[in-house]
């Protein structure tokens, strides 16, 4: 092999772009689905209905105690059994990440909901708002605002973790880099390229989160 040859980056770009698009799609779907399901899980965990709280708690504990890569493999093998037909690595990855991230977003939303002072709930109740109205109009908006930096940081972690779909052969950015690297016999150069792309995106996002944190701090 000898010297590095970064000229391989040029022909790899279309593949990298397609891979990156899947990585971003996976991140966005898992984030939005994860936040919605995670919020519902958080409401279930905080619910006075004990069996509901237990089931949600067990789900969250289970997901948070298994390495992600195992969950990815496990879903890939189990989903076809449930649906009766193979779903493909990409669909499987999207389902897995949404289900897995929901557990983490759940815990973030739960502490967000608990961070809203009791007095706010009393004020909403005193105005005649019901439980659901209070949750939707008073508690959740404040919970999301209080937790916004943490929610976004979790999303950055999620973006990095999507590279694990490599384990089931889904065509994300890392997989694309891997394939090109093998075809051109330049694996190291391609790994460097994907690392650079991951770094650039994650680092700019965390700078953006820091900025946002400052702005949110001023509004409060």
């Amino acid at each position, binding site marked *: 092999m000898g010297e590095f040859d970064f000229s391989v980056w040029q022909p790899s770009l279309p593949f990298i772009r397609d891979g990156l698009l899947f990585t971003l799609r996976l991140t966005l779907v898992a984030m939005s689905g994860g936040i919605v399901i995670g919020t519902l899980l958080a409401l279930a965990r905080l619910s006075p209905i004990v069996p509901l709280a237990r089931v949600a708690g067990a789900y969250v504990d289970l997901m948070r105690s298994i390495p992600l890569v195992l969950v990815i493999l496990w879903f890939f093998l189990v989903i076809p059994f449930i649906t009766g037909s193979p779903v493909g690595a990409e669909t499987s990855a999207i389902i897995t990440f949404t289900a897995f991230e929901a557990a983490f977003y759940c815990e973030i939303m739960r502490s967000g909901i608990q961070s809203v002072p009791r*007095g706010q709930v009393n004020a909403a*109740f*005193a*105005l005649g708002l019901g439980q659901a109205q209070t949750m939707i109009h008073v508690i959740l908006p*404040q919970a999301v*605002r209080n937790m916004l930096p943490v929610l976004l940081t979790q999303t950055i972690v999620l973006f990095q973790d999507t590279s694990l779909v490599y384990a089931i052969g889904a065509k994300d950015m890392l997989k694309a880099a891997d394939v090109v690297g093998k075809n051109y016999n330049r694996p190291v150069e391609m790994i460097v390229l994907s690392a650079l792309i991951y770094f650039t995106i994650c680092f700019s996002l965390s700078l953006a989160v820091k900025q946002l944190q400052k702005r949110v701090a001023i509004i409060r």
Partner: protein
Amino acid sequence: MIEIRNVSKWYGQTQVLKDCSTHVAKGEVVVVCGPSGSGKSTLIKCVNGLEPFAQGTITVDGISVSDPKTDLPRLRARVGMVFQHFELFPHMSVEQNLVLAQVKVLGRSAEEAVARGAALLDRVGLREHAAKFPGQLSGGQQQRVAIARALAMDPICLLFDEPTSALDPEMIGEVLDVMVELAQEGMTMMCVTHEMGFARKVAKRVVFMDHGEIVEDAPTNAFFDAPASERAKTFLSRILHH
């Protein structure tokens, strides 16, 4: 209007309300005072069911608060409450704070609610602050918005839970002025407060509580001129000569 009969409440083993009975007639102002930890805030929160109680009954306009069949949100919508720490919704503008429950609970149109809100803001002298957020207002201004928010529901009575205790001294007056005005217009009010000047000016009766008990329930002048109990005497001498 408000009837409190033999109400008792426990937190675990500790009894925080002991057989409390009093009432507030329509158009009356009743001030509840007493040392901290005497149960006055707990009692007033029982009136609109924010705090449950184990024994006794409370009725507001003839409707029982503790009856499981009572539509509590509907009853609460008719009973305004103002809190020590204002409890405006910090993620909403002043206008939105005033509009939310009018639209969601009373089913008013947005236009109607905004107009009603604006009229009430005008009344508490804060019309030009409608677009601001609570965090941009002083404590006194926030509490006046909170009063306007309660009034926007056209309540049949108002509950005040230490409305001036969290305010800087120079802001207490502006809030009390609004309260005095309401009282003089005939609003039925139950006020937990240490503002004895306010009590003297507008209260029909003063209820004095200590250790979860109603120790005295007397016409205002009688309470200040000749408190019957030692505990009330001690309390008054402390609060009036500090």
